[in-house]
């Protein structure tokens, strides 16, 4: 009995001792401090927490394999609450007080517009994993992101839909009093013009509408081959159901707003044949993605989402850049060296093949780098999204 207890204690303490030893070693070797500003509380917390998990997972994996050039990556995480003011405070703390090499975040584009200028002015790389707004990377040469914009995703989706369903003309329906659905509509409109696909009719609805039959009847009369829907998932589900009740069989094409299980909670099988483009899919069976999903589930006990995947990839991008950086210990020099090394990085991550491309030029201004990445096109089959083959 006593022997058993002793053994038990020994087994319990041994890993801790080992861990302590490794931590001590790591502290002796150069730690690379990377700042993470994420919305861990407030309405954007569901994104921020997924982002933090993605980074934590990637850091643990990289460090378990001996770090980068023998250096451990240490994440310094701060809660920016999804607020502009807090993002500014957190950026200042990370850059001037914690003296991190670079900063990841913030979670929302809105906060990025407020905080990223601080990083650029201090010549510190700022790397967004969830900022999709236009103009983020126009803020300065130290701005990077691996988040894919709707403007990159939707053209791929439309092209795939045209090919898959042999589409000649489409009708459009969108919510005209919501920032997200309206900007999605603008991108769809530009895409359809560019790909020379005629629009039979464009219909709008307002927040809170539940009866879309008047608009849908008009769409039916215009006889399109498919219906483009810049809508939130719950509205889209209702629109799809009412379309079917009017005896229409056209497939739907949508953006990331449709990327939600809620679509199928309401529409069930009626949503089948809906095409949706997204930066990441749990159905994407590449080895890297499978390993990521398995490791995430094991560590956090929940399914990863797009935000976790993009955060996970972002740390791997930076780790890859750091392989080619000789850290001197002089912070300004090292920060600049990282900035020089990042644009050349190419990795194969959970979200697929990734590279940077220079942001659209702005006259008289140096700009940062956007993501160069193929969107993943999904099709609804039997009440869920699967990869479009």
């Amino acid at each position, binding site marked *: 009995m006593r022997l058993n207890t002793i053994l038990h204690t020994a087994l319990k303490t041994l890993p801790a001792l080992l861990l302590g030893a490794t931590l001590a070693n790591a502290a002796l070797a150069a730690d690379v401090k990377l700042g993470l500003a994420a919305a861990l509380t407030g309405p954007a917390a569901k994104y921020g927490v997924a982002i933090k998990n993605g980074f934590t997972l990637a850091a643990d994996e990289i460090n378990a394999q001996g770090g980068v050039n023998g250096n451990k990556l240490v994440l310094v995480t701060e809660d920016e609450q999804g607020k502009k003011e807090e993002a500014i405070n957190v950026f200042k703390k990370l850059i001037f007080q914690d003296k991190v090499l670079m900063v990841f975040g913030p979670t929302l584009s809105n906060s990025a517009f407020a905080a990223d200028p601080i990083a650029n002015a201090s010549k510190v790389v700022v790397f967004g994993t969830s900022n999709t707004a236009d103009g983020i990377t126009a803020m300065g040469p130290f701005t990077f992101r691996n988040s894919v914009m709707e403007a990159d995703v939707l053209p791929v989706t439309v092209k795939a839909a045209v090919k898959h369903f042999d589409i000649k003309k489409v009708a459009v329906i969108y919510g005209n009093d919501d920032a997200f659905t309206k900007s999605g509509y603008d991108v769809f409109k530009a895409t359809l013009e560019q790909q020379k696909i005629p629009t039979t009719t464009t219909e709008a609805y307002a927040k809170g509408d539940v*009866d879309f*039959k008047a608009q849908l009847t008009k769409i039916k009369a215009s006889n399109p081959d498919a219906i483009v829907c810049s809508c939130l998932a*719950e509205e889209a589900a209702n629109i799809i159901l*009412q379309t079917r009740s*009017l005896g229409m069989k056209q497939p739907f094409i949508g953006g990331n707003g449709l990327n939600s299980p809620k679509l199928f909670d309401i529409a069930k099988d009626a949503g089948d044949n809906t095409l949706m483009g997204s930066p990441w899919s749990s159905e994407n069976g590449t080895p890297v993605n499978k390993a990521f999903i398995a490791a995430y589930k094991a560590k956090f006990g929940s399914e990863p989402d797009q935000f976790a995947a993009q955060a996970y990839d972002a740390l791997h991008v930076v780790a890859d850049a750091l392989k080619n950086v000789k850290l001197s210990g002089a912070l300004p020099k090292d920060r600049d060296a990282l900035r020089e090394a990042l644009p050349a990085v190419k990795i194969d991550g959970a979200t697929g093949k990734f590279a940077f491309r220079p942001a659209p030029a702005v006259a008289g201004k140096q700009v940062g780098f956007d993501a160069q990445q193929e969107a993943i096109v999904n099709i609804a089959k039997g009440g869920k999204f699967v990869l479009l083959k």
Partner: protein
Amino acid sequence: MFPLTHLVAKKKRLAKSRFSDVKRPSRQSAACKLRSASRNNHASSSLLAGLMLEQQLINALSLGSVYALFALGFTLVFGVLGVINLSHGAIFMLGSYAALLLVEKLALPLWLAMLAAMLITGLIGLLVDFLVLKPLRQRNAPHLIPMIATIGVATMLTNLAQGLFGAENKRFPVGTIPEDSASFGSVHVTAVQVGIVVIAFVLMLVLLVVMRRTQLGRALRAIAESPKAAYLLGINVEGLFYLTSFAAAALGGAAGVLVGLSFNAISPFMGQPMLHKGIAVIILGGMGDIRGAMIGGLFLGFAEVLTVAYISSDFRDAVAFGLLFLILLVRPSGMFGKVLERKA
């Protein structure tokens, strides 16, 4: 016995004339729109067919009936209690949830769930009257106060529903909603659509008959004229206030169930847009008038759908409510605005 037979005879005569009263304006306005619409498009019949007018008219009838059904209870409370009850939207929403829960958890058949939901919302309406409106009545609170109080009730009920049921949209489980539909050429009519129209018209007729042809209705109308005089005549005013609140809330609940059935979008916030339109409808119809609520509701439904069909969905609310404004310019007390005149 004599007064009864007398009443029946009179009822028949009046019912006939009133029925044609109800029908004529709606038919006329639809026909007018039809004609002007075809003129606007200088259309041949083929173009009209291409716009699926028949389908749009059915869409308009079912949407208008929903508005009318919602407005019936709303206008009833105003007519009798003189209160604009802004919690009617929240009660409408609770009707939807009540039926949903009864179908989901107790597997009640739809018609029974609807009756039970009406009973439940009726009791909630009764409770609101007892806890909120009655104390204000007893203190002789000025007109605006009960209205403001019902905003509070609405906010509370909405928050409560959000806490209990979550913020996301719910729908009736697949298989519980009759999915029958009939097609006539390119026109599709669903069983739920027919149900809405029939139930709205039946409830309106029942309400009209009760109000115009029964002792109860006479008492209610007396209260609408003057609660004090009614009380002096020996009418149980307080009791009829309760009954009215119960009936109005039950009607609101019925509307909620039907909307929940037909649009698959039951959410804590579904009452808000309906409330805004309901206010417009009862003002258009004439505050407190039952036929007015019915025709006002149908009018708004037709205005919205035909705006989408012939002008643009971008301007749907602007055109529909612009028309409403124009009507009020000509008839400031609404289409049947006698009660308001009397009250003023």
